[in-house]
């Protein structure tokens, strides 16, 4: 399909939230390996809050914005700031739009990538979720298709490549920073979250 209606977007973001919540243990274990072990429960808190605000009747832009605001106000920690920013930062791509289409989504991801990189003060290579968002945004940009399933598939693939790429990195920010060389070999938990979020969008599109 080529576009999602506003109510489909709300439903998609609900599916995204549920996917993150279902993966709490995966994220806990990933954060135990490189950080303090709270990424899973933090994301659960944030996306549970998102589920409460994702109600029928929201515009596309508001659906993303409110998701971001819920996450930012309930998650806490680094993840609250960066994932809140991820959903809010690119929401202007949907300003006045009745639907989500490939072009607007590409624009959303590009804007979001910029916003999180700015908020976190990091570029790619610092072993953060930015390492998943950036390649996802690039993959979507490169996917010259207007089919949403193809676009989401590319986004998830980009994110998963980012997760892989984060493994050999030495963290230079966040709680993993002082692990130094010991962070090598472990993927970044936030990057995994990005791949779960984009993967859930793909699954939703595939289910239509």
């Amino acid at each position, binding site marked *: 399909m080529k576009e999602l209606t506003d109510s489909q977007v709300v439903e998609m973001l609900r599916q995204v939230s549920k996917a993150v919540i279902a993966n709490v243990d995966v994220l*806990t274990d990933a954060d*135990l390996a490189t*950080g*303090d*072990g*709270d990424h*899973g*429960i*933090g994301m659960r*808190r944030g996306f549970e809050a998102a589920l409460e605000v994702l109600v029928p009747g929201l515009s596309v832009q508001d659906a993303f914005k409110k998701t971001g605001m819920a996450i*930012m*106000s*309930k*998650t*806490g*920690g*680094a*993840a*609250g*700031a*960066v994932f809140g920013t991820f959903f809010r930062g690119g929401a202007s791509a949907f300003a006045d739009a009745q639907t989500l289409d490939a072009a607007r989504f590409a624009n959303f991801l590009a804007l979001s990538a910029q916003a999180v990189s700015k*908020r*976190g003060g990091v570029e790619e290579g610092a072993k953060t979720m930015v390492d998943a968002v950036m390649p996802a945004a690039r993959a979507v940009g490169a996917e010259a298709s207007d089919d949403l399933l193809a676009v989401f598939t590319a986004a998830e693939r980009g994110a998963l490549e980012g997760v892989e790429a984060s493994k050999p990195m030495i963290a230079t*920010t*966040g*709680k*993993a*920073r*002082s*692990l*130094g060389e*010991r962070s090598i070999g472990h993927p970044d938990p936030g990057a995994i979250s990005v791949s779960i979020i984009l993967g859930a969008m793909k699954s939703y599109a595939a289910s239509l």
Partner: protein
Amino acid sequence: MAKVPKKILNDPRNVVTEMLDGLALANDGRVERLDGKDILIRTDLPDSKVTLLIGGGSGHEPIFHGFVGQNMGDAAACGQVFAAPSPDTIMDAAMAAHRGKGILFLYGNYAGDNMNFDIAAELLEEEEGIDVRTVRVNDDVAAAPPERADDRRGIAGDIYAIKVAGGAAEECDTLDEVERIARKAVGNLRSMGVAVAAGSIPETGKLTFELADDEIEIGMGAHGEAGIAKQKIASADDVADQIMEKILDDMPLGKGDEIALMINNLGATTMMEMLIVNRRVRQILADRGTIVHRTDVGTFLTVQEMAGFSITVMKLDDELKHYLDLPARSVGLSNM
């Protein structure tokens, strides 16, 4: 990460709210929870003063929320366990505590705290026109070399920074002055810790790291962030020597220099161990002719049931001494 730590709690998802209720009550009326939010605020705030807002993740009790009171924080914005508070919480705390003379944000230097407090500061300045300044405590010498001191974490030095800044915010008339004094305190702070066993997060029930039965980690951070070296368990004198060498390399202290000295329990360590360490630290300082103006051995910044301790040194001048020694009474710290 085998055994789930044994704790006496109710629903682990409610630990922070329940704890904040208990903490507010433990302050005998001097502090209250703000509208059921994760915010503690003084009940005796003067009508006009520079505001000191502190905060950070929970799970490190008594810091931060145990250090709200006269000559300490005016309010604390509290996050979930090991997670910075959200911008909403920080803004709500700031608005409630603001008394017209601007706000100093004082907290530990972690990516999560920095981002959330920055977002709140931007919104407060843009939307409310409040003057907000930020001072981040970065006392952990194990976290990065001196040339990257901005990358250092904030650990138990937070407490002295809060005490000095809190005194300044009580007595000084301008935010500029309070910021200057807080910055001086932070610049004079050096800390380093050692972990003997891990703590855990109640909601996951999992230990945040693992150490072998005969292993300790020197320089470990307040959430189990890796330190300088994992090594075989050593004697108290040896561990004290290692930590003090690193601190004194970073901030040389000599004859006649005056300091405040804190030995902080990371959670499950006996006071016996800390007092034995204090003995050694004092030998080291006496050899240099350094004067200890004030000592605090106790539990100030914990990492749940982590076993281990940290040593903090703050170099003093008359100004810092004055603010550090002002009276205080709170769950975290009382001064005569």
